[in-house]
């Protein structure tokens, strides 16, 4: 699945950063340097980013500008990362977050 807008009547051809690989629940996904995690996931057709703690309901992108915290996920073992404003890095491990998430390491 590729949801990228490669050509646009006003903006022209998309100018991507360097291609890199991130991992979504262990599966490799291609991403571009300079874009937030949420964009790479949405481009791959992924919509569910986390499940709520009480009712286990799915949540995804809502505001896309770092205000609402609906899109938080566990990134490299750190829970509650706002994926719409956190840029991808090569080899990043992104996991669907359950509830408030768990810290891998004791802090």
């Amino acid at each position, binding site marked *: 699945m590729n949801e990228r807008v490669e050509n646009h*009547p*006003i903006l022209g051809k998309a100018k991507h950063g360097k291609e890199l690989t991130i991992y979504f629940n262990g599966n490799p996904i291609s991403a571009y340097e300079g874009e937030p995690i949420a964009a790479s996931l949405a481009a791959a057709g992924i*919509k*569910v980013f986390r499940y709520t703690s009480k009712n286990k309901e799915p949540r995804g992108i809502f505001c896309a500008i770092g205000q609402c915290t609906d899109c938080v996920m566990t990134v490299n073992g750190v829970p509650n990362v706002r994926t719409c404003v956190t840029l991808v890095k090569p080899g990043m491990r992104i996991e669907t977050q359950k509830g408030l998430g768990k810290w891998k390491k004791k802090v």
Partner: protein
Amino acid sequence: MEKESIKKEVVVVGGGPAGLSGAIEAAKAGARVTLIDENDRAGGQLFKQIHRFFGSSEHKAGIRGYDIGKQLLQEAKDLDVEVMLNTVVWGIFKNGLLGIKRENKTEILVAKRILIATGASENPLSFPGWTLPGVMGAGAAQTMINLHRVLPGRKIVMVGSGNVGLIVSYQLLQAGAEVLVIVEVLPRIGGYLVHAAKIRRMGVPVLTSHTILKAEGKNEVEKVVIAKVDKKFKPIKGSEKKLKADLVCLAVGLEPLAELCWMAGCRFFYSRILGGFVPLHNKNMQTSIPHLYVAGDVSGVEEASTAMEEGKLAGIAMTESLGYISHQEAKKKKNVIQERLLALRQGPFGEERNQEKEKIYEIF
């Protein structure tokens, strides 16, 4: 706290059209200006606005939002405005103290004048299924397609026919998606009819007196039910229509992002027309706390063009109060801007906002 603080002269919080314009104006007058933005680039929501602006030439009409953004960033750079990016202002205290966080470190700044230009956030709308992935703000969808160049959905129901709903619908078409319908609960279209005509010509129906009843789907939006409403906005039984859709965009207004003003202890005023609680301010954009100014959507939700003018007003007033420009010169400059603001606040939508602003100045 004051001892360890970093001394600044004018601090602007938020680098959108209002903040940038305020920073530029203050720097032009000779003040040392620091602009703080939590994103990795300033410009606020200008860079996702790919349409040409309305108004007359002094309001930058005919120029696309992102080009205005580029112009403002260049001007700020040319004037040596200090720009702190990826920096969050998490607190505001007495005597001009600001708590900031950058690179996971907390620092305290102390400023002589502060301009809060934090903008607004999109209103949600609750209905069964509104929390499902695939229901998002219209502005969020706009960010995804125009900035990140990714479609968050392909078959779309737009809720709300104000200018945001109409413009974002058109831009979703430009990005290659299908907009099934725009529903508007009022009996008339909310935004400029020229935008509505443009989208209708593309074959998108704008259904007035219609609302969304629910979004259905197991893990994400799969179906959307819309219905006609009566004069009391109650859904009419039997008028329901079920559509196969994967994205619901909510364009139901914005609310000022005024947390810092609340924290600072500003006096507020509730205005339905301006989007909710707004910090009281005078024509200089000064709040009830003398060294604290506001501009743009945080002082009442309007448009980018009015935000830029308000930012300029604040920039001039702050530097006037610091003695950089004479009262006479400031008055002349401010009068010109006030006239431009008045021109922007005309027509069926503008007039209401103008009256509301006048009310706020009066109460202040």
